[in-house]
């Protein structure tokens, strides 16, 4: 029988008899007769496993994956970092991936301990005191953080930098639609959050200031100055960070962040067309009981042995219902496990080295590109692994020319920032070789 149903005819007959039914339909007697479907669902005919495997292979073959068949210079929230074999190998252990949320700690110590390790690593990276077990992605983590900030401060305005990922800003707007909270943008005219506008708008009604660092344009914002300004108000300071950059950059916890969010796809997770990724969420100690989502804590069992449990559950929907800090239930546990394994693989020195590689390669690519006739730099200032340039031709023309030569070029910024149309956001990670970068530069040089 299809559908992984193990019943033999004899089993089925015996079981129907045991429940006093003559046929399957008897079991659906509570469904009003006129509501029952009269004909089969209109779906394609079933496939055997072998046919399905072929079908899926053919479907996959209709894609030309950026990470496989091209030199990819796209970033903007999804990054082509190398995923070490060991990560994939370990997350494919089915004791991990076929388990549910660890509601029964005695038989879930594997997941629980791994989450505790994840939380610890996120705290180390961000310089915060507590982190949760994960959020859906960087965008929802950021939106929930901003809403949380308004809740704890009792204020109703969120100031968000225009240099926060545009899709993250869209999610923030969606999340606040039903709440009496307004979202106001702080422009980023020079590619960084405008400090004067921020200071001017930071009134007593502001509950949260949201900044991304490095920001959407790749630029490293002046965290300490921003932190100082925000910390002088009653608003909480939320920094959305790229975990790879934190191998080199000052942790937001050291420049006044109250909440740090971000997406850890870059750590051990494939790009997967934008999901599943994994959001992280970290806070200073005083907001531990205000966080959304699952949290794992250390404890001991009856014999004094160390163990781990889901804790601080009095914040959560299954206990608090409409008074919960969030409705989140399932999160992105397996992706968080991949991030944990990747971070362990890199270790203290490896993460720094990875960040240095990205920095050096992006810097090299930028220098070679802006040296070209007809390619203009757009912003000044230090950047990490992404940067903005403006070629003479339109980004669409440039990208289609590059594509013909096996290169996926940068993001056309006009799509999100009309005022920056003509600008392109390039990303260079450790996976791009010098040869690929030189090739990009060569092609950009003749594409006029």
């Amino acid at each position, binding site marked *: 029988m299809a559908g992984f149903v193990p019943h033999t005819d004899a089993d089925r007959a015996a079981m129907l008899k045991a429940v006093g039914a003559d046929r399957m339909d008897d079991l659906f007697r509570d469904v009003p007769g006129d509501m029952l479907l009269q004909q089969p*669902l209109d779906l394609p005919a079933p496939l055997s496993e072998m046919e399905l495997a072929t079908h899926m292979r053919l479907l996959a073959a209709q894609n030309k994956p950026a990470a496989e068949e091209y030199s990819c210079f796209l970033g903007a929230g999804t990054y082509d970092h190398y995923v070490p074999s060991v990560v994939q190998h370990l997350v494919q252990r089915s004791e991990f991936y076929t388990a549910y949320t660890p509601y029964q700690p005695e038989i879930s110590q594997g997941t629980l*301990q791994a989450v505790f390790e994840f939380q610890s690593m996120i705290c180390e990276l961000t310089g915060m005191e507590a982190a949760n077990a994960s959020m859906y992605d960087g965008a929802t983590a950021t939106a929930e953080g901003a809403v949380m900030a308004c809740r704890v401060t009792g204020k109703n305005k969120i100031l968000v930098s225009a240099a926060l990922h545009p899709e993250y800003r869209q999610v923030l707007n969606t999340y606040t639609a039903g709440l009496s909270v307004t979202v106001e943008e702080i422009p980023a005219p020079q590619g960084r959050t405008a400090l004067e506008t921020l200071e001017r708008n930071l009134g007593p009604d502001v509950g949260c200031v949201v900044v991304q660092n490095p920001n959407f344009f790749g630029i490293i914002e002046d965290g300490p100055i921003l932190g100082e300004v925000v910390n002088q108000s009653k608003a909480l300071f939320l920094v959305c960070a790229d975990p790879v950059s934190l191998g080199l950059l000052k942790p937001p916890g050291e420049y006044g962040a109250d909440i740090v969010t971000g997406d850890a796809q870059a750590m051990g997770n494939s790009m997967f067309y934008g999901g599943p990724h994994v959001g992280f969420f970290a806070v200073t100690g005083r907001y531990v009981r205000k966080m959304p989502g699952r949290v794992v804590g250390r404890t001991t069992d009856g014999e004094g042995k160390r163990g781990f449990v889901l804790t601080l559950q009095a914040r959560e929907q299954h206990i608090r219902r409409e008074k919960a800090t969030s409705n989140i239930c399932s999160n992105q546990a397996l992706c968080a496990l991949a991030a944990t394994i990747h971070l362990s693989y890199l270790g203290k020195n490896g993460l720094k080295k990875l960040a240095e590689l990205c920095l050096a390669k992006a810097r090299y690519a930028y220098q070679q590109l802006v040296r070209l006739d007809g390619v203009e730099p757009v912003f000044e200032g230090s950047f990490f692994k992404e940067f903005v340039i403006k070629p003479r031709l339109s980004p669409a023309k440039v990208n289609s020319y590059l594509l013909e030569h096996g290169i996926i070029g940068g*993001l056309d910024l006009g799509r999100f920032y009309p005022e920056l149309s003509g600008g392109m956001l390039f990303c260079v990670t450790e996976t791009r070789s010098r040869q690929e970068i030189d090739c990009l530069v060569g092609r950009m040089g003749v594409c006029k």
Partner: protein
Amino acid sequence: MTKPLIFELGSPGRTAAGLPEPDVPVTKPEELLPFGMRRERQAELPEVSEVDLVRHYTRLSSLNYGVDTGFYPLGSCTMKYNPKVNEAAASLPGFTGLHPYQPEELSQGALKLMYRLERYLGEIAGMDRFTLQPAAGAHGELTGLLIIRAYHVQNGETQRNKVLVPDSAHGTNPATAAMCGYETVQVKSNSRGGVDLDDLWRLAGADTAAIMLTNPNTLGIFDENIKQITDIVHEAGGLAYCDGANTNAIMGKVRPGDMGFDVVHLNLHKTFATPHGGGGPGSGPVGVKDFLTPFLPRPLVECRVDEEAGKTYYLDHRGGQSIGRVKAFYGNFGVMVKAYAYIRMLGAAGLTEASEHAVLNANYLKEKLRETYVLPYDRTCMHEFVLSPLKSGERKVRTLDLAKRLMDYGYHPPTIYFPLIVEEALMIEPTETESKETLDGFAAALRQIAREALEQPETVTGAPHRTPVKRLDEVTAARKPVLRYQRQS
């Protein structure tokens, strides 16, 4: 039997990473990074070799219990077998290596898959359009309620500020209502476990935005008054939201769209056999009737037919009335691949058989336990049922104890203490992928535990005895939270 933390392994200076040497000129980071933004103290990450790493997480995995380990009758969670061919399909580089902003012409396979999956879900749920963006069930609820909210706002009905939620509802339902700025109003259940129509009649009115309902509900019961319920809410001007967590009972039999629901979310990580990952990633697509399509998050995947080029799939970002995005990019695509593969493998007949056998298994197991355990709602169940132990009147032994003792017999316990309207609830969902022998074995264990509860209650109240750790001190964990490792200096 507990394991050291990864931080407690290894040695300073060790690393598993074999990163390449830079092939470009390197400027010292200190010269490139602004002074105030340099990291002064490196993050205390583990320093282990690759072997250490592999052994550590392999050992951790051995402390876990998954569907691949054994029977996992966790009610409301549909822990069915996760077919391995789907895992293989989802790890094809043609899927994993796609960048969300790469040109659409390079992503035709992915867009086609999403386009078709949307239509399959529409057919199964009886809805016109779906968004695939939500990452889980609760995220779908948020999306659905925001759609309902946008609809009322468009109609100028901003006074609709209440969401009706039955007392048997999952906690995410009221929590979602609050996140959308709604007040939750609880609707009573009747003696048969369904919605109390009189109470609903009394509560539904000009301030009703919606009802959120799970059907079959969290007692595993199909509410036979479903049409009256959705009618009452519609007459009051509200909309009907279906929490589709329990769709595994009804595929090919009856559809939320035909029950009068306007919005539904499905859990691909339950009904459509994608693994739960120890707590995610899931996927919670939301389906709507046509009149709500304008409010769906964008982009939607559309198809253009051209004589020469044939079919081209594309992302349509237009939609002035859309509630906006609920997530960056397009949703948990990797999960969609597995659900798509599952639907293609089973087809209409296979999905219907899956639901029928899920219901048969639940009713069979219920029959096997009715002599021993109290059955608060004694009627035909759907894919799950709720017991309120124990018939013997033994009060020392609580549901928590039964659950813990089941671990000693090698089973994952059912969901406990939910739904809230049943005292000491034990919620059992066997799923269709379990055999008669497995169900017989599980029923025998539960009966044996009932005997133990009478004859040697300490064995049950002291359980589990055979797990890597014993019962853990949750009170101290919450009172004095230790949420991270810190190196002793």
